[in-house]
């Protein structure tokens, strides 16, 4: 056993856990004050239900037997035979991966804000986890997409593209909000969320090396630089275009950059993270406006940030992948003389994930819509989800 690696994987797992409330505050601050608790609850719910499902069946289906290409089996049902004996590293790794499983559906919550029934969400999450997350995760990590030669260091395709396109499908079934969008009810809460997210993302990305080694250090550095560069790009564009650099712009840019560096975090180096950050920050800054053009109501821009940022970052690996990190296991990136091979594999991997996730998510939502219904009543939409769905009010003033 290597205690340094163990320490690193454990603290990284804790950091990813912390991202879930971070995400809740990031989204919750952007939401209106009468719906913020519903937003927090959608996120916290994920980390109540998914951990249980993950150890019960999710890990097994999405990983073992390792040589299955499409879906795992029941070998590790309830973590059978996986114990702390020996070095306990597999147990630590499974906990680490369980955090990823919990945060992925949580990402979708930002899109469906302000109108989705919590009962529908409560069913959506575990079903989506089993039908969408688990197979896509398998395909990417050890399954056919990985075997073909695509790269996804910490979950660009498996997590951000996957959740991002699911968010699009979900809101297409869900429909638009009846109420007009509102400015963030608490920007400080948004920034608390942003701070936690960036902090936690070092665990997400650098922890994905599953060891405290040079690759982890590189992923760490990349996570630092890409977040910064994308935040910078976003606020520069805002400053030129809208006249002001904003906090929400800085926050959104940071998150876009972190999303974009996720797939390549352990495989790119030098100035690549800066370029990936700048590109993703700039593209996402425009992509969040697409919803107006196309008319889907992605409340808090899950598509514009996670889908677009994840896709951009994943494709850019085709250019920037540095073979030093994988010694021939994949094609090198175009800038390292690798030809378009890797880029094509990245496109295929994302394409497959997009199609599967979109179709299945759409289907799940349609079934929910036809059965228990997915929308709160118009009255609840007007008067607020917190009280109607949770019997709570976020703020009780002077008392």
């Amino acid at each position: 056993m290597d205690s340094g690696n163990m320490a690193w994987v454990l603290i990284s797992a804790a950091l990813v856990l912390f991202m879930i409330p971070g995400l809740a505050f990031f989204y919750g601050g952007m939401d209106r004050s009468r719906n913020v608790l519903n937003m927090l609850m959608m996120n916290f719910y994920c980390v109540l239900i998914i951990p249980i499902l993950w150890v019960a069946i999710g890990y097994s289906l999405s990983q073992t037997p390792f040589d299955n290409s499409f879906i795992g089996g029941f070998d590790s049902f309830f973590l059978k035979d996986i114990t702390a004996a020996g070095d306990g590293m597999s147990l630590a790794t499974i906990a680490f991966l369980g955090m990823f499983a919990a945060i992925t559906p949580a990402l979708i919550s930002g899109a469906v804000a302000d109108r989705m029934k919590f009962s529908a969400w409560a069913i959506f999450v575990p079903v989506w986890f089993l039908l969408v997350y688990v197979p896509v995760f398998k395909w990417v990590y050890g399954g056919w997409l990985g075997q073909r030669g695509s790269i996804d260091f910490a979950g660009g395709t498996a997590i951000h593209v996957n959740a991002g396109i699911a968010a699009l499908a979900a809101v297409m079934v869900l429909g638009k909000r009846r109420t007009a969008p509102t400015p963030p009810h608490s920007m400080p809460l948004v920034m608390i969320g942003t701070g936690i997210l960036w902090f936690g993302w070092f665990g997400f990305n650098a922890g994905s090396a599953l060891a405290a080694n040079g690759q982890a250090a590189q992923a760490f550095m990349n996570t630092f630089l890409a977040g910064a560069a994308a935040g910078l790009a976003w606020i520069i564009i805002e400053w030129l275009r809208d006249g002001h650099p904003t906090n929400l712009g800085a926050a959104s840019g940071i998150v876009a950059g972190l999303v974009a560096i996720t797939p390549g975090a352990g495989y790119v180096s030098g100035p690549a993270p800066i370029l990936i950050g700048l590109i993703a920050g700039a593209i996402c800054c425009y992509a969040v406006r697409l919803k107006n053009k196309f008319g889907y109501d992605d409340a808090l821009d899950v598509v514009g940030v996670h889908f677009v940022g994840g896709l951009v970052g994943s494709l850019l690996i085709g250019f920037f992948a540095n073979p030093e990190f994988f010694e021939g296991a994949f094609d090198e990136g175009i800038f390292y003389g690798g030809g378009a091979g890797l880029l094509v594999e990245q496109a295929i991997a994302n394409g497959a994930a997009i199609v599967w996730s979109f179709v299945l998510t759409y289907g799940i939502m349609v079934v929910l819509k036809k059965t228990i219904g997915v929308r709160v009543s118009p009255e609840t939409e007007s008067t607020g989800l917190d009280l109607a769905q949770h019997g709570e009010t976020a703020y009780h003033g002077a008392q």
Partner: protein
Amino acid sequence: MKLITAIVKPFKLDDVKDALKAAGVQGITVSEVRGFGRQGGHSETYRGAEYKIDFVPKVRLELVVDDGSVDAVIAAIKASAVTGKIGDGKIWVADIDRLVRIRTGEEGPDAI
């Protein structure tokens, strides 16, 4: 007795309070309000989307005064709240039938 209500710019509150004190006013009740008027609102931009904010923050003062003080109070508010820029606010005056001090039960001008 009269109830004078004034809507002023929030950052003028301290000046107005000092002016009223100087004018001998002994009680004021203040609330945070939002105003819509000629001043127009402002727009805020979040992720490139513009939000028109029609209501701008204002502060509302209420003072019950005796009839003879109305002019002095209005003058004090006007002098201290004015910036000359649109949106400086309004003052209006209404009649009060009765005023009670809860602590003592005093009524009328004594209760001011």
